[in-house]
Each structure stands twice: as C-alpha cells, then as structure tokens.
C-alpha cells in the first residue's frame, strides 16, 4: 500500500540532496582553498548529482522477462555525486593573493552562479510536483477509508 508513497518519498529525498549539492556549489563560488594536495591548495570544483531510477530488484527483471511488460519501478535515487575536475575555472590576475601562481593568476572555482540558479529552479519545480503527487495519493487513501462508512 505504501509503495506509491515510497516512490514519492524517494523523489523528495533526491531533490533535497540535489538542492544541498547546489547550495554547496553556491556557497563555495569563491573558495580558492578547497583541498590540499601536492603541497598546494586546489580551488573548489563544481559538484553535481547523477540520478538513477530505482528498480525493484530481481523480481522486476523476472516479471519483465515473463510478461514482456514493464514493471512500475521504485522511484529515483542518487547513484553518485561527481565532481567536475575537467572544466577549468576562471583565472583572475591578482599577484598579491596568497594563492596566486607564478604568473600572478589565481584560479577560481568553476562554479557558474547562473547555471546553479537554473538547476535550483528545476529542483524546486520537481520537488513541488512530487509534493502534489503525494497529496493526491494521500487524499485517495483517505477516501478509500470511507468505504462502507455512510
């Protein structure tokens, strides 16, 4: 009975985690000292989430193979949080900065605030959609409890 609620709950958790990653990116938009490796401070690199549909395990594959129909699936989950190490950050010319390299440039994090805001709006919209689904589900169950009560 609670399968539908579990599906929606997983989606809410996932969007919340995505929002947390976005806020972490936004908070660290100017952080030049994120990790200390090779004897040098590295700037913060943008993180993002990888979403994955949750299946129901072996029974769903068996069912699909036997019926040639899909199984419903069990919501969404974050399979990993990846860090974008390839995109270079912006270089700022500031020779007096303690983290400047030999040429006087400081490497800033590769976080683009505009892109983060767009992601934030998308996460918010998905979250609200899932809340609507949850409310609809709850109202259906409440009306099912009224069977035979008149």
């Amino acid at each position, binding site marked *: 009975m609670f399968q539908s609620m579990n599906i929606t709950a*997983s989606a809410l958790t996932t969007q919340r985690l995505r929002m947390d990653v976005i806020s972490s990116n936004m908070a660290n938009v100017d952080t030049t000292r994120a990790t200390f490796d090779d004897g040098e401070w590295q700037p913060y690199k943008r993180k993002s989430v990888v979403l994955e549909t949750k299946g129901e395990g072996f029974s769903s594959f068996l069912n699909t193979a036997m019926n040639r129909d899909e199984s419903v699936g069990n*919501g969404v989950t974050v399979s990993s949080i990846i860090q974008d190490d390839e995109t270079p950050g912006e270089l700022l010319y500031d020779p007096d900065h303690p983290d400047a390299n030999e040429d006087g440039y400081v490497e800033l994090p590769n976080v683009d605030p505009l892109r983060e805001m767009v992601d934030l709006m998308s996460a918010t919209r998905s979250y609200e959609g899932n809340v609507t689904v949850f409310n609809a589900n709850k109202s*259906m169950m409440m009306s099912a409890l009224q069977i035979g009560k008149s």
Partner: protein
Amino acid sequence: MNLFSGTISQLEQGLAYSSLNQKVIANNVANVDTPGYKSKDVNFERMLQDEIQMTSSSFQPSNPKHFEITPKQSTSGVHQRSFSVRENGNGVDMDREMANLATNQIYYDALIERLSGKFGSLNSVIQGG
C-alpha cells in the same frame, strides 16, 4: 448465493487499475530529472488481458526440487512511451503527468463513491427487511 458479482467486481477491477496508474504516475514524476528515462503509462484493456493470461498460464517446475515461479500480478499492463522531449534523453512531460494525476484521483474517488453506494444499498436491503 453470490452477492458481489457484476458491478461490484467491475468496480474492484477499476480500482486496481487506478491504483496501478497512481504508482506509475508517481514514478514518472519522481524521475522527471533522470537522464534517459522514458515515461510509462497503464492501458486498462491490456491490463485486463494480461491478468486473464497470467491466471490461465502456470509455470510447472520440471524437477520437484526447483522453486515454483509465481509472477507478481500487480504490474501487468504497464508499457513505456518511447519518445523523449529533452536533450538528456528524459521523456517525462510534467504537465501531462499532472493532468493524469488529477484525472486518476477523480476516477478513484468516483469509484469509491459508487462502491460505498452499492454496499450501502445492500446493507439497507438486508437490515430494512
């Protein structure tokens, strides 16, 4: 004496379809940002056909030591729409899912009302006489 055949059993089938549809919609909305996900929907006639097929076929194990396979009957009739609307391969149309959600909710509530009505009239017939 079968009090509950006819309309009441049809109402039960309708409710089964509606709750399966609710799960599918919830899953679609949950995966609105997952790359490569294509939205699914439930087809009522196909669900009824699949149920009839499944109850008539049985998987007999050839060796008594094998486990018996009993397929879950709760997900027949679900199939995937195969178009995608976004560049990350995702195929969920949020507005369409919201419309389906509202429709399904009203459908479910209507069936529950009718079912309550049928049970209520059975009750009043039995106790009023």
